[in-house]
């Protein structure tokens, strides 16, 4: 790694086969491995948290209930009365992304949300679900949304392309936001860690200075904890907003 004067900030995002020969044969890299770990972690969190089923919850149960309540309120308040039908979808998306973001902060773990292939797949899934929901709840009337109500007809050739582009930009902005935030955070962490190694190579004085990037990295890790939950929240709330527009009218 960055033993000398270079910092290989993007090397951490490379995919390698894991689990020996089986992984080699299946092309099974860290990314799906950590997705599985994330799913197991979320399921374990909910199962172990809710197993006591106490009236006065313990810490883990309170956390599980808060998580459930938080997403349930978000889904029902944002989407409306049909929100309960989409609650499992929003819940799964939120906790999958949250687990992915937080797993990546553990040393030696891989952040699968830092790959645009993953975030784009999630965003396209949300996009397709919202389109299908639009057709189910509105039918062909869905297409009338591309012409703003009350706008003069002669502006239609300008307004309709703008509306269509605005609609098509949804999955793009969803995926870019999540992937860029996660990747930028991890590149920053790696760059400052690289500074530490470079300063430590300068002798005794450098070793003292090398403490500074470590301090910054501690602060950055705290920031990443905030960004991780915030990005999961933004992804989930935007999913809710798109679904609300799909089920409205």
């Amino acid at each position, binding site marked *: 790694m960055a033993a000398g004067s270079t910092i290989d900030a993007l090397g951490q995002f490379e995919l390698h086969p894991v689990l020996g020969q089986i992984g080699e044969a299946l092309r099974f890299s860290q990314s799906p491995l950590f997705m599985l770990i994330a799913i197991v972690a979320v399921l374990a969190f909910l199962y172990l948290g809710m197993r006591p089923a106490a*009236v*006065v919850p313990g810490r883990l149960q*309170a956390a599980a209930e*808060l998580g459930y309540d*938080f997403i349930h309120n978000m889904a029902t308040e944002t989407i409306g009365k049909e929100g309960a039908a989409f609650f499992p979808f929003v819940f799964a998306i939120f906790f999958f992304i949250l687990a992915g973001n937080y797993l990546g902060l553990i040393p030696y773990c891989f952040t699968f949300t830092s790959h645009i292939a993953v975030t784009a797949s999630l965003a396209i899934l949300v996009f397709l679900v919202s389109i299908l929901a639009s057709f189910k709840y509105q039918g062909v009337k869905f297409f009338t949304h591309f012409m703003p109500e009350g706008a003069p007809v002669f502006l239609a050739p*300008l307004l309709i*392309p*703008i*509306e269509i*582009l*605005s609609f*098509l*930009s*949804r999955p*793009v*902005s969803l995926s*870019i*936001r999540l992937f*860029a*935030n996660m990747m930028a955070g991890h590149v920053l962490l790696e760059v400052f860690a690289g500074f530490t190694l470079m300063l430590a190579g300068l002798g005794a004085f450098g070793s003292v200075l090398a403490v500074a990037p470590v301090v910054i990295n501690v602060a950055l890790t705290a920031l990443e904890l905030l960004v991780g*939950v*915030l*990005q999961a*929240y*933004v992804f989930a*709330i*935007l999913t809710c*907003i798109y679904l609300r527009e799909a089920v409205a009218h």
Partner: protein
Amino acid sequence: MGAQDDLNVSSQAGESADSFDRRLADAEARMRGKSGKADTSTTEQEGSADYSAFGLAMRIGTEMVAALIVGVVLGYGLDRLCGTKPLFLILFSLVGGAAGMLNVWRAVKNANV
């Protein structure tokens, strides 16, 4: 409130004053614990309001850029398809920029922060 119900039931049951006092103290301790929890949940709600404002701030930039990217990619693709090199690229980057502005306007309009 489960603890309050417990309290009413135990007072109506007419148990000895000593036992009642002990139960009252217990219930109060439990209520304090509960209200303490309620307090943290309200601060968490305020926190989540802050989160959504922060989240909105992070949304705006990508909303604007994403529509522009879609416009440029669409325009470039149409140009490749039709062989009209700069025409659709120019048209759709303008429309994409407009759509980006529309995205930002919609995000901010509904936010009401």
